Each structure stands twice: as structure tokens, then as C-alpha cells.
């Protein structure tokens, strides 16, 4: 089973040179720590920066320079600042090549739910609905099951949706899966030491297994 860091590390293998990438809060944020050698990517944060750098040192902290998670950040050489409409023009206009975000539930048709739990305080969708409706390439980073041990990969989402038919790939603590256009989670890789049976057991939606399923490599 993968740690959160390893999920991020596995997702980082998907990065391609020259991509602009938007990382959600939580596990997705960690992806920035594992950019493969020889690959250059640039991070967009939807509050209005391209070319987001690492957290600042104590001396560098600037209240006017934060990311979408409201954390203080730095700007790399070549960065740019812009307003929120331009920021979402980049997202909606598909100029951002990859979006990585967390989810509470993903359905076998690519539907995603990650913003609202009925009966609980609703904090709002922030930019998540724009991101999932727009991105050509969405990877969900999440645990395979919830705290009660129930599958988060479902036939149909039970929570209010964030977007429909949009998730293309999922990386969990157990596996890498693709959402097929015709529906279903196609198993691509297993986490080291995790069996196909374990993944099957943790997956409520339709799991498609073809041939040998390799273990992830790091």
C-alpha cells in the first residue's frame, strides 16, 4: 500500500516536459516534490499565479503572495500574476495540461464528487467545478477506501457531484486505474505487494482486469 507521498510520487511520473499543471490541496500538492529529472513543468494556482515556487523562507514571506490553499508561496523566475477571470480562462480554455485533485467518490463513468456532504457544513466548491468541467486531463489522487473502509470507486456517486464524465485516471494507495470512455475502471498497475484480489475487494464499481497487472515502479 502506498503512502500519500508515494501516491504523489506515482502521479509525478505522468508529468510531461513543458506542461502547465494545477495541483489541488492535500495529496496533489505533494506532486510538486517529485518532478522527474529532465522534465520542466510549471505550476498554476487558480488565485492568480503561474510559475509558483516553493514555500518562502521566514524572510521571504509576503502576505500578497499566496496559493489557492491560502499558503504563503514564492514566485519562480518567469512567473506571472493575473486576475481570477484570466486564471480561469487558462483553465476553461484548456491551456493547463493537467489537473490533479482529491475526491470523496469517483464513479465508473468518470463522475466525481468532492465538495459537499449532505448534513455537514458546506464549505463550497471553490474552483473545483471549473477545473473538472474544463480539464482535458484529470488525475484523481485519493485513498481507495474511506475511513469506514468503504470503496470510493463506485458504480454511481452517492454524494452531490462536482462534475460528470470527467475523471480520466485515478491513483490510489492500492492501484492506478483508467476510467474507460465506455465506463469502468481499468486496472493499470498495482501498488507494490497489493494483489488484484485486494483491489477488486476495495472497488465497488466495475473493475476491468486484462492480462497481467504489473506493480508500480518508483
Amino acid at each position, binding site marked *: 500500500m502506498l503512502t500519500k507521498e508515494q501516491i504523489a510520487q506515482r502521479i509525478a511520473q505522468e508529468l510531461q516536459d513543458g506542461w502547465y499543471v494545477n495541483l489541488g490541496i492535500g495529496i496533489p500538492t505533494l506532486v510538486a516534490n517529485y518532478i522527474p529529472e529532465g522534465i520542466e513543468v510549471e505550476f498554476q494556482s487558480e488565485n492568480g499565479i503561474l510559475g509558483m515556487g516553493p514555500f518562502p523562507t*521566514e524572510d521571504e514571506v509576503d*502576505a*500578497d*503572495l499566496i496559493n489557492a490553499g491560502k499558503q504563503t508561496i514564492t514566485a519562480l523566475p518567469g512567473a506571472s500574476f493575473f486576475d*481570477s*477571470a484570466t*486564471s480561469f480562462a487558462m483553465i476553461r480554455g484548456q491551456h493547463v495540461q493537467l489537473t490533479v485533485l482529491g475526491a470523496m467518490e469517483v464513479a465508473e463513468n468518470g463522475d466525481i464528487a468532492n465538495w459537499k456532504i449532505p448534513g455537514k457544513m458546506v*464549505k463550497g466548491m471553490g474552483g473545483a467545478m471549473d477545473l473538472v468541467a474544463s480539464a482535458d486531463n484529470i488525475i484523481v489522487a485519493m485513498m481507495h477506501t474511506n475511513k469506514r473502509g468503504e470503496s470510493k470507486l463506485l458504480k454511481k456517486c452517492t454524494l452531490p457531484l462536482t462534475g460528470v464524465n470527467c475523471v480520466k485516471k485515478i491513483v490510489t494507495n492500492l492501484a492506478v486505474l483508467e476510467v474507460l470512455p465506455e465506463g469502468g475502471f481499468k486496472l493499470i498497475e498495482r501498488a507494490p505487494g497489493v494483489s488484484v484480489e485486494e483491489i477488486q475487494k476495495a472497488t465497488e464499481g466495475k473493475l476491468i482486469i486484462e492480462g497481467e497487472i504489473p506493480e508500480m515502479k518508483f
Partner: protein
Amino acid sequence: MNKVVKDAHEACKDIQDGMTIMLGGFGLCGIPENSIAELVEKEVTGLTCISNNAGVDDFGLGLLLKKHQIKKMVSSYVGENDEFERQMLSGELEVDLIPQGSLAERCRAGGAGIPAFFTPAGYGTEVAEGKEVREFNGKPHILETALTADFAIVKAWKGDTEGNLIYKATARNFNPLMAMAGKITIAEVEELVPAGELDPNEIHTPGIFVQRIFQGKDYEKRIEKKTIRKD
């Protein structure tokens, strides 16, 4: 065309109970601190506030919430505020949640005389309820309408006497869009300079969108999540 007023008190003098107000900022970054303090002082109530977030318990719009001055919030994310939660769950506060990109674009549209536009954001979700759906390029989109306000209140880094504004870093966020969408737009700035001192090529908000400007004071610029690296 001198638009300078003395302070937040003068700038906000005709903001009245029940009005709709847009307030720039993302989290606590780039919020009009002086004007918010003035609205608290003024005890104006029944406000509809359009702002991406709702501040924290003891800063930003949280100060207005605490005094029950806000009737309705129009935001994309409101999650750092216990009092907000209490008022929402008890039904004292109406909340309209809007995807962040749609919120930004709807403000811009309001300022740009575009009454409505199609966006893919929110299709198939509760955000789309009651909205027209239409397919473009094989993909469903929903029709969103423009937002405007009686007053827009924005915070800039530098401004000149004609209302031209320059924002700093990510404190820009919603400010330029809301500046366009206010029937009256108030700008508070960290540094107010005479017309001609800002490079016309570097202006983010042309003065035509701003009706009143003042030199703000005592900016706290509180940081919500100070995150540092050690090296």
C-alpha cells in the same frame, strides 16, 4: 478628474442597508481592510456581499458576519469561519455558492455589458439546476448571467488620483473584475500618487472603472496559512 476622497468614512458614506456589495480579495489576501472596518463602524445591515470568501472569525468579512450585518453571501468557498457556519446552519444567513471561475467571469461580464455566457463549469451538478443547458462542440454547457453591485470595493497596491490601479502579486485576484462591475466603485490603496506617476502601460484597472479612491492606512495584511520552508 480627481476622484480622491479623504478616507473610508467618506468613501462609504452612501452605502445603505440592504445594498449589494462586491468586495475584492481571495481569503484575506487583497481585501479592502479599511472599508470593511468602516462598514462595521457604520452598522449598515441587510447586506448582500459578493466575495470569493467570507473572511475568518475575527478578520475580513467575518467582522461583518459577527455583527449580523450580512443577509446573504455570494461566494465560492466559505470554509474558515465558525460564525459563518453557525449562521448558515441556523438559517440566519443565505448563502449562494458559485464555482470560482464562474464567479470571476460573471463579475467581469457584469462590468463588460455581457448579460450572459455559456460555461461548462457546474454542468450535471446542483449548480446547473434551473439553468439552460446547451451543447457546443459536443460538450454540454450552462448559461450563467452577469453579476453587478450597488458598490464594488477593491484594494490595490498603488493608485493615482484619476483612479488608475496597480495590484501586487496574487492580491490582484477578484479586485480588477469587481472594480468593473460596481455601479459605484471604491478603491483603497496602499500608496496614492498624482496622475502621471504610474506608467500607463502597467495599469491593471483603468480609472474609468473607479469612482472614488483613498489612501488606506494601518494595513494588517493578515496571513491565513503562513507556510515556510527551512533552508
